């Protein structure tokens, strides 16, 4: 049986003591154990930043790639081996900023992966510059007079672009987050989970400020109601509705038609095309009538 202990690593943790990233890490381990996934069945993919170090602290396959490029790498992993549970865990700067274009097109492709965004609304590892989700007007260590542009609305963007599972979680609520992660990982198709993860070093507001403003999504919310879901996504200004905003059954996932042709085995296990087949194709270049 898989337990949370199976996911322990002995890698020295580089996060600030007390960082809400630890909450995300615990919720993720708990979710993987509850789903009965063994570490070798999971592939964690990340970019660069403090959040992107999470894969080192959870025993699993790891692709800790380039800043902003977790999504394309995860898509490649998923195409090559669809049996793996591929989960992207990275920050808002990484996934919404440097890699925003990839995320936008990932919604369109709909690979069967889960994207967990550690959204601390700041660039923390580079010591406090504005991120794509920093509120307008907030003073940072680069925008001294306050950020002068509006934050990105990626959850609403996801819904508009056909993402079939969109949720918001709170790193300070491990239990609630684990529930959302479980639903997201079980969802077929791309699941986007934005996790509010207050930065205790550079953030302008303490965790308590967020805790006061966290509200559950109304019980009567129908997660297939696209317009209402977009409303809840855009609503996160003075309070933060937490839960699954949007969930509909997914159409075909990325590479489905290719997999219909070649089956679901990992690509490296497929037989190579035999020599005569290629030779026959090469001989078609010989011009005869």
């Amino acid at each position, binding site marked *: 049986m898989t337990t949370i202990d199976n996911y322990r690593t002995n890698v020295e943790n580089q996060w600030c003591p007390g960082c809400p990233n630890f909450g995300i890490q615990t919720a993720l381990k708990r979710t993987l154990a509850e789903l009965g996934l063994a570490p*070798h069945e999971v592939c964690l993919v990340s970019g660069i930043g403090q959040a992107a170090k999470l894969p080192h602290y959870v025993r699993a396959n*790891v692709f800790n*790639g380039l800043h902003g*490029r977790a999504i*394309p790498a995860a898509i*490649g992993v998923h195409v*090559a081996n669809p049996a793996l549970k591929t989960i992207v865990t990275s920050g808002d700067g990484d996934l919404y900023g440097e890699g925003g274009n990839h995320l936008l097109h990932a919604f369109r492709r709909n690979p069967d992966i889960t994207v967990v965004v550690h959204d601390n609304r700041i660039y923390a590892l580079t010591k406090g510059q504005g991120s794509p989700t920093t509120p307008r007007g907030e003073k940072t260590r680069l925008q001294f007079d306050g950020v002068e542009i509006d934050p990105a609305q990626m959850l609403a963007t996801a819904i508009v672009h056909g993402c079939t599972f969109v949720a918001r979680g709170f790193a300070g609520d491990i239990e609630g987050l684990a529930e959302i992660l479980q639903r997201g990982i079980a969802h077929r198709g791309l699941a986007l989970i934005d996790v509010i993860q207050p930065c205790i070093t550079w953030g302008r507001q303490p965790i308590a400020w967020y805790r006061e403003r966290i509200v559950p999504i109304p019980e009567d919310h129908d997660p297939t109601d696209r317009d209402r879901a977009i409303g809840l996504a855009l609503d996160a200004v003075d309070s933060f509705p937490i839960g699954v905003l949007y969930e509909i059954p997914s159409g075909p996932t990325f590479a489905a038609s290719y997999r219909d042709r070649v089956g679901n085995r990992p690509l*490296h296990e497929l037989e190579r095309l035999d*020599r005569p087949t290629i030779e026959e194709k090469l001989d078609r*270049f010989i011009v005869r009538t």
Partner: protein
Amino acid sequence: MERSIFVTGAAGEGIQTIGDVVARCFLVHGYPVFSTQEFESRIRGGNSSVRLRVSEEARNAPCTTADLLLALNPVAREHYADALHSDGLLISSDTPTDGGNHVEVPFVSLATEHGGQEIYANAVAAGALCAAVGLPFSVLEAVLASAFAARGEETVRANVAAARAGFDCAGSALGGRAPAETPKRDASYAYASAHEAIPLAAAAAGCRFISAYPMSPSTGIITAFTRDADLGVFAEQAEDEIAAINMALGASAAGARAMTATSGGGFALMAEGISLAGMIETPIVILLAQRPGPATGLPTRTAQEDLLFAIRAGHGEFPRAVLAPSDPQEAIELTVRAFDLADRYQTPVILLTDQYLADSRFSLERLMLPAKIPAAHLADPTDFTDYARYAPTESGISPRLAFGQGDHVVCLDSDEHTPEGHITEDLRVTRPAAVAKRLEKERHLRSEIRPPSSERIDDAERMLIGWGSTKGAIAEAVDRLRSEGRKVGALHFAELWPLPSLDPPKGAQLWTVEGNATGQFAQLLRSQLGWSIEGTIGRSDGLPIDAQFILERMS
């Protein structure tokens, strides 16, 4: 017998179809054809040409003058007039004011009259060309029937009728100037470009994944995989070249043999991904089809300007191989080799081609796979109790498992990492060992890089050194110089990096011949091998290097 035929016109007028039909006529008649294309970066209009070089022995190198010029419109006739030999024949729909050896064929009106529609003007032109080169009409008829069979009987009939009209019109206009019928030869040839051959070689080598962003002249590579689903290669048009290389690396890390293809600008965007491949030691083959830069440069023309960029692209220090084929057969061999080297050394391998290799069709006896196609090099998961992705070894090459092989976990990290693949800042032991490991792989890789091929070097007083696509042109230049009694030889490199140590040829003055203005390979030979290079015959106008160009620069 040697003929050079230029088919010229505007983009959208169908010169490629005409060129292809006439080339196939010669080929089925037993004559090898070499064809090049030059065109402008536009969808309609401008000036473009398809150039056929027909001979009895294959001459796979560009020719720059025509003995037969077919112009579909007056602008093309004027634009290409200088390329026609003084005693060459012009076929066009209007009469030039200066007269000359000329045949007038009203392509469009004959097409309407005999084919029923203007679009059959191409068939009229092909008919006229066949009459002018002495190919029997039955050959053209057979080629048209097979080329248009899929579009139905009516299309074939109309094409044949229009072609017959062009053939007869040119035949009667030529009168006594008409050539004797070209005798049929008992020979057949594979007629293909390097970029047509490479996807098949990739599939044979076990490639299962390509992600690429369309960019001339590389787009044909990914298209070949989507066109032929039987190859079983997953092909995705990425949102940009950054995504393309990162997707391919993700797939490769999960065990798929993966590649991408691009040109200079896209390759620039891939530079960080190339460095990533070096750091996480994950195989990838990158096809870089060169075109003239900087920046957007000349999108549809050819160059060899990205050699030093290919060798240096990517920050930090890590091994890579750079291979540059010269023709479709060598492209097949080097594609298979690229996948093998990438897999064995767990590092990026760059296949360096160019627009000339992408768009020129060569005549070769046939295209063959290498005798042996190496197997993949993934490790056996049952060999390990505790697996560390970057376990130290003598060669620097660690046994590679893909994600999901056995019940091990595989950790890849773009940060400097421990043998287990976890982030570290241990500068005392781990970092120096990791640097040494990566560079040790380069030492081994260098030892299996193959030396250049040589031609007539024994008594050579002057040596022409080339790489990649210029081989045919240089060989022809050497032949012509030898026939004038000049002691010239050639060295040609297909494997460019990491350059193994090699003694310079003794007693000869060394010149590189390159499609760039700064002598990039000469710089390498000087800096890496210490060779004394006299100078460079460089071409940077966007056209392929041809024998005549080399001869003019040497005199």
